[in-house]
């Protein structure tokens, strides 16, 4: 429905008669010329007559329309429609534009981030509030700085809105609302309003305390959130050494979440450094979290590297990639005590154990092994050392007693003290072990007393030998030692045990645990906690005297996992994950200058007073996710990358959940002071468009006249 503010001006529409009259009168008042050469004119006219006639009529129409449009424009026509935008009242008031700049606001809708649309809405509201309004802009991203006061400097506010970019932090709408309430409370204006431009993520609200009461500011929510915001995110990423994949093998466990209402198939890729080394697919149901494991090896020559898992893009890219620092295990220092040394290498008691702990005798195997005889253990005891070289248990994480005869009590005491202090000891029997002697001296190191061994093949014919052998069953699959093994682990289960030591009865069950048993129910591997340390008792030999386990694939991971468990180095680099906005503490060491270079040029330099005399520095500018590299300068002036100090920063996965908050979580709108007159209908003035039409018509008339 169209109305007019000045309907009397419509009388001017009669002016439409003017061009028509001019047209008609012009025809009548045409000068008459008797012309001889009319044939020429007629021929010319024939060619142009139609065009000229059309031009005359168009010209008449344009002029008539221009007159009509001028009259209608002067009458100021308007129409009205349902108010779509927010209720904005112009005039003196206090208002807060609360705008969501969490990383979710970077969700791309129709080719541009949602935040840009919200910023446009906010600028429109700011303009509608008028210059007398005192306004502040409060951002909802977690940890963002909030303004201290309201201002009438709308130009600056507009610039702030224009400069808004999605942060890498999750939303903290509750805190932003509270700050908005504080700002408005300090204002003397009667009318107070909070305009909310937010995705209203459920994860952005916490706590039950409402930011204001019934007399609080009015709350106007500008809902520009699409009905559906499907999002996929890599919400967690772990990197653990995987001995089963080789000495440099790393298992990457990427947790992927589907925050959508429909199932999705996701393509994931693993990159080590900048090189994609693996890809995989993952089917995710609606709202499902699933973990995808990648196995990869770190590049040769490195003990640590940054890696990332990313998924094919969706509307919100920032949470589609997650970084992790992948490190090989810390080296485990093992003292192998050979109780039955032989000159023939493969007959030696510890031949297989040494080979398994240090495969290929490579530096990057993660284990350093020193082999000594049981006599050389005398080096532990200064009084009984004799010719044995001095030996310090502080140089070792784990001691393996392989078929070692019972030790004297004083040496056992030294070892026991070391275990209580955190050391780990692995005991395997053999033909050199006398259970009775062990009972006398070795009990402080054992989880359980030893009994005589049994030979399961005793008296059996050679062809029956294998069938009477025992097998490992019922191992604790959840125990870190058995974590690398699959459920049925043929590498372990196929090994045949012909002779095992039996264990004596015990009542100590609190600190003792049987980790694996044989098919006859006898204990195969028993663990006990002694003070801060651990001891493991394996009831068969570490060589092939009593079993053929050393030639089975399970031998190497079993032994490596056992010594790592004893050394408690299962989770190398299990440092806390750094999220965007968190502080990272870096040890200074001998560095006199330390430079941190992050993604997007973020970084800092610590030198001079900022580093001198300090053991660590704190870096807080972790505003973007990615890899932060460290370049250090030591006291000699040598500058180079310090990979061991590099760290990664990821977005908070809570922010990836775009589920909208239920209305009950949103604060109630207060009265906001005296209510402004509201009108659900919005008047749309049309005279601007008509004025433009008049201009266009006049322009067209000018062009037609010139033709």
């Amino acid at each position, binding site marked *: 429905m169209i109305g007019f503010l000045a309907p009397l001006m419509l009388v001017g529409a009669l002016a439409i008669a003017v061009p028509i009259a001019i047209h008609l009168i012009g*025809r009548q008042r*045409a000068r008459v010329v*008797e*012309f*001889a050469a009319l044939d020429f*004119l*007629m*021929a010319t006219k024939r060619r*142009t007559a139609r065009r000229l006639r059309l031009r005359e009529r168009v010209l008449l129409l344009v002029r008539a329309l221009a007159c009509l449009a001028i009259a209608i424009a002067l009458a100021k026509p308007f129409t009205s429609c349902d108010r779509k935008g927010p209720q904005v009242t112009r005039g003196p008031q206090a208002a807060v534009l609360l705008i969501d700049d969490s990383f979710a606001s970077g969700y791309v809708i129709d080719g541009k981030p949602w935040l840009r649309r919200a910023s446009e809405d906010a600028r429109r509201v700011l303009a509608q509030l008028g210059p007398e309004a005192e306004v502040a802009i409060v951002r909802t991203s977690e940890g963002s700085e909030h303004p201290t006061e309201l201002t009438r400097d709308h130009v600056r506010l507009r610039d702030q809105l224009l400069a808004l970019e999605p942060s890498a932090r999750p939303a903290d709408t509750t805190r932003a609302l509270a700050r908005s309430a504080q700002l408005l409370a300090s204002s003397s204006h009667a009318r107070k309003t909070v305009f909310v431009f937010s995705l209203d993520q459920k994860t952005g609200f916490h706590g039950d305390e409402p930011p204001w009461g019934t007399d609080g500011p009015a709350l106007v929510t500008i809902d520009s959130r699409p009905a559906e915001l499907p999002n996929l995110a890599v919400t967690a990423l772990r990197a653990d050494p995987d001995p089963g994949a080789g000495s440099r093998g790393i298992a990457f466990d990427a947790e992927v979440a589907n925050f959508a209402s429909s199932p999705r198939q996701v393509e994931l890729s693993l990159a080590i450094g900048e090189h994609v080394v693996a890809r995989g697919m993952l089917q995710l149901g609606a709202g499902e979290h699933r973990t995808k494991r990648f196995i990869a090896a770190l590049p040769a020559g490195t003990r640590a590297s940054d890696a990332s898992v990313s998924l094919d893009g969706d509307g919100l890219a920032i949470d589609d990639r997650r970084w992790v620092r992948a490190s090989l295990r810390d080296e485990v220092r093992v003292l192998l005590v050979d109780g039955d040394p032989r000159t023939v290498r493969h007959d030696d008691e510890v031949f297989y154990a040494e080979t398994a702990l240090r495969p290929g005798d490579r530096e990057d195997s993660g284990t350093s092994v020193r082999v000594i005889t049981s006599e050389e253990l005398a080096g532990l005891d200064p009084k009984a050392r004799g010719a044995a070289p001095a030996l310090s248990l502080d140089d070792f994480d784990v001691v393996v007693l392989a078929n070692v005869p019972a030790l004297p009590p004083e040496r056992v005491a030294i070892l026991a003290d070391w275990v209580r202090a955190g050391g780990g000891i692995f005991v395997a029997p053999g033909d050199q072990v006398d259970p009775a002697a062990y009972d006398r001296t070795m009990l402080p190191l054992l989880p359980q007393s030893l009994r005589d061994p049994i030979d399961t093949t005793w008296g059996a014919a050679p062809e029956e030998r294998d069938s009477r052998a025992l097998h490992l069953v019922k191992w604790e699959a959840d125990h870190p030692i058995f974590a690398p093994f699959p459920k049925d682990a043929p590498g372990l289960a196929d090994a045949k045990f012909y002779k095992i030591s039996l264990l004596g009865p015990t009542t100590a069950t609190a600190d003792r645990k049987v980790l694996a048993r044989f098919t006859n129910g006898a204990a195969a591997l028993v663990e006990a906690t002694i003070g801060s340390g651990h001891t493991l008792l394996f009831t068969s030999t570490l060589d092939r005297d009593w079993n053929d386990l050393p030639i089975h694939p399970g031998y190497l991971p079993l032994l490596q996992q056992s010594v790592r468990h004893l050394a408690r180095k299962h989770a190398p680099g299990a440092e806390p994950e750094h999220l965007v906005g968190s502080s990272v503490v870096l040890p200074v060491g001998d560095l006199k200058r330390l430079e941190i270079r992050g993604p997007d040029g973020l970084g800092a330099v610590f030198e001079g007073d900022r580093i001198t005399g300090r053991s660590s520095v704190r870096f807080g500018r972790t505003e973007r996710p990615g890899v932060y590299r460290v370049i250090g300068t030591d006291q000699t002036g040598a500058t180079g990358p310090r990979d061991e100090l590099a760290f990664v920063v990821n977005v908070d996965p809570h922010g990836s959940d775009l589920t909208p908050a239920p209305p009950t979580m949103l604060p109630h709108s207060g009265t906001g002071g005296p209510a402004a007159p509201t009108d659900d209908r919005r008047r749309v003035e049309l005279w601007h468009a008509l004025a433009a039409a008049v201009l266009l018509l006049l322009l067209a008339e000018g062009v037609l006249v010139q033709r």
Partner: protein
Amino acid sequence: MTVGLDPVQLARLGSLPIKARVIVEGALSGLHRAAMHGSSVEFAEHKEYSPGDELRSVDWKAYAKLDRYYVKQFEQESQLTVYLVLDASASMRFRGAGAMSKLDHGALLLAALAYLVSQQQDKVGLVACGDRATETIVPARARTTHLHDLLGVIEQVMARGARGDESPAPALARIAELTRRRRALIVIASDLFDPEDETVRALAQLRAQRHDVSVLHVLDPHERTFPYEGLTEFRALETGGRMLVNPAAIRRDYLERMAQFLARCRGTLTAAGVDYHLAPTDGALEQALLDLLVARSRLMPRRAS
């Protein structure tokens, strides 16, 4: 150099014979000798030379024998026959910027020619065409009284005004019949506005019949420049057709077509050997006459040989 006659002054001169004489005298004052005389003559007798006689007529053989100058007297074997064709169709009534209409302009030129020819004792006739009902033919005669009759007819035509829409082509055909193969000079004053170019073709045909043909193409300056502005209703003089038009919108096309028309007339006629002269109504009458005479004098020796 000739001085142009003021048309207003010319109009005050009264009767057409006087006007014709004034025009001729004006034209001849710039011409050394007349070119409008018979070209085929025969020796008659000798006459003693007296000042004023042409030197080319002196009989040098007689001078060698008698030591006295004698001038050869010639007798015209046949007189020059000139037919003047005046296009008096309605289109000749147009008068734009000039002081006189195309009809008056053409009529005065032909009257002056008639006077000139008559003064030379040659035969002159007239055909006034344009309207079949009032078409006038004055046979060619050489008597002095005939000149008065002829000029009287021209005066009547001028007084009656241009009318009708017949082209001069039929009149030219009749002249061809009248001359009966005797060579004649035919001078036509017309605007040649003829949709089918009949007139131009008829003139070329006359020339093909060994007649000498001269065309005085009479046009008004407004017809050549089309200076009109503002919404104008043009009315055809011959057909009565009307056309309401903004002249500016069609000026370019009109001028293009007029230029093509003039080029076509000049090209076709000149190619046929017709002596073509553009005689705009704002031009001096005696100049147009002079141009015609000069052109005739150039053509005559070539054609006589």
